[in-house]
């Protein structure tokens, strides 16, 4: 099966390893990956600030780029949510709507795709460890792929997943929110970290670059020793793909 891979802007800038792992996972479970070299960003930064005209321009560039009828797989529930759900809102009552609808119907979060379309069966090769999981808000409430991500982690025999007390609470990233309201964002991420530290785990895993950049950056500054891990880098490593 041929699939397009959309690496996201943050993935391309800060999570190269997670992108490599994502592609290896797709290939391992039988997909043939196409990488469009002209890809950029899903458009969330301008969308969330209310700049819809600019966002439509970015969205149309993506819709034109991924023009063959292959699934578009994204290692981020947040960006997947934007392309699956928010693109439809953006183009409602415009002449582009049908094209956008066709495009959006082909977009998948990677966890969901691995689990439900490639029937991935993960075979753990790693040592025993305990991890916790942070749900990205849009992955949870827009693309609704968090259960798929957690199911993949739970498949790993030697990994004990301990849930956070406030798993469903925002970490304070929120894209431009963290820049516009740095003080509130800081208080939110500190709260999240308090929760993480109370779980006594080796890893904090998240399936979204934004949250991970926020949580890991703040943990590093605070000197915490819980290791942050991107979901797909973690999964690939556990099943011996690295």
């Amino acid at each position, binding site marked *: 099966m*041929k699939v397009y*891979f959309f690496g996201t802007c943050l*993935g*391309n*800038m*800060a999570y*190269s390893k997670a*992108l*490599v792992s994502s*592609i290896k996972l797709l*290939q391992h479970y039988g997909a*043939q*990956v*196409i*990488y*469009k*070299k002209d890809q*950029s*960003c899903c*458009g969330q930064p*301008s969308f*969330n*600030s*209310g*700049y*819809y005209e*600019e*966002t439509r*321009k*970015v969205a*149309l560039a993506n819709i034109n780029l991924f023009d063959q009828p292959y699934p578009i797989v994204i290692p981020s529930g947040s960006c997947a949510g934007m392309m699956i759900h928010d693109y439809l809102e953006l183009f409602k009552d415009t002449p582009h709507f049908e094209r956008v609808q066709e495009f959006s119907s082909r977009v998948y979060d990677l966890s969901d795709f691995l689990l439900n379309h490639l029937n991935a069966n993960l075979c753990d090769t790693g040592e025993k460890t305990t991890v916790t999981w942070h749900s990205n*808000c*849009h992955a949870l*409430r827009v693309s609704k792929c968090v259960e798929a991500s957690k199911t993949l982690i739970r498949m790993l025999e030697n990994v004990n997943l301990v849930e956070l007390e406030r798993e469903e*609470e*925002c970490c*304070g990233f*929120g*894209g431009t*929110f*963290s*820049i*516009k*309201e*740095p*003080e*509130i*964002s*800081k*208080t*939110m*991420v500190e*709260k999240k970290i308090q929760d993480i530290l109370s779980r006594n785990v080796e890893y904090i895993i998240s399936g979204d670059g934004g949250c991970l*950049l*926020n949580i*890991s*950056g*703040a943990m*590093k*500054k605070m000197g915490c020793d819980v290791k942050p891990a991107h979901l797909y880098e973690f999964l690939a490593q556990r099943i011996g793909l690295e």
Partner: protein
Amino acid sequence: MEARELITEKLNDSQLRKNLDFAMSLLQTNRKKLLKDRYGDWEALREEGRKVKQNTLSRLPELLERFEENAKKNGIQVHWASDAKDANDIIYNLAKKNNVTKILKGKSMASEEIHFNAYLKKKGIQAIETDLGEIIIQLIDEPPVHIVVPAIHKNRYEIGEIFEKHLKVERFSEPKDLNAVARTHLRKEFQEFKMGLSGVNFAIANEGAIWLLENEGNGRMSTTVPDIHIAICGIEKIVESFDDAVILDTLLIPSATGQSITCYNNIITSPRKDGDLDGPKEVHVILLDHHRSDILSHKHYSKALSCIRCGTCMNHCPVYEKVGGHAYGATYPGPIGEVISPQIFGIDRYGYILNLCSLCGRCSEVCPVKIPLAEMIRDLRSEKAGQGSGEEILGISRIKPKMAEKLGFKIFAFLASTPWAWKSMLWGVKVFGPIGKPLAPLLPMIKQWTSCRAYPTLDASFQSQKLEGVIYE
């Protein structure tokens, strides 16, 4: 105080943070537990509630008139107030006519919205709060921090101190003792009142009746003890029938406090009738518009009038929990406040509160009548950016465009839709990313980011890799 300073002050108030953290967790847990144990199909009920409100709003003028007609038949006097001044004047004139100098008050957000207490004070009339939370904040001259639980930011030790200082009593900290203090204080106040004021939870058009919910019984004092009862009712509180009101009530209470029912349900259908032993001799209902009909006329934002004021969006908002209601500087704080405060009081004055949201979407998820709050907050941001629905929002013409922000997003859109430019940008990140650390204090955005986080590893190396088996196009 500037909005920014106010937020900093609230974030630095560790006692406030502790109190809010404790209270919001409790409200969230209570709701979650109740829904799990007692409500078989909460989602279906939410859908019912949404439909009831949408149906009502689509026929609001007709239902308001039906309410007026039936209420009048019941002997209730109905007044129409198009704005805050109208509503305040109606109440003041009724007070003057009856030589009233003190008004007993039940909890009412509509009265907060029209700044009723301050208006009356200027006219030499005193408003005495009866809701326990409202008494506490009235004693320290603060506005409500939350629309349902107005003093939720104070713990019992602080309340003990407030009572000690302002009511000249011994310092207590046990809830039962604090209640006893409030009770003694209020009973004294209740005695000589001629006029009581309340809000309205549901105004039922078919019956011409009003329904008030409360947990303390003190609200009932302000509606039954005085000779004259005045109820302020936002026009969106109208429902067609008792059946509709019951659906909304069943959604409201679990959402608000995690109870299945309030301790008191007061349904008022008329003033005292011949032979009745108690009750007010006159009942007045003020139907308050205050820009609600402007909101109703919007195709998109009219959904905001579905709000039944349960406050659960506040209880679940991670920003509200950190800063508390006062940081918004508006009568209505939290997610619903971000949606309605700019529309009731002007987006030029209250547009800044739209930034107090990370768009996590939890408010939309918990709203019992399914108002898409997060989406509306984002859409109102687009109104501020001049790219909204094109419908008139109060004060929008007085907003100055943010040129730097606009330019920033224009550049972003150019980069993200122009492959060579995007690749050059990634190349720039790859080259300058690792050496950007010493420059961080000079670049405002990176400075903000690194104020509490380590400088990120920006290697941007993926684009230059060639992976085996991948088709590059």
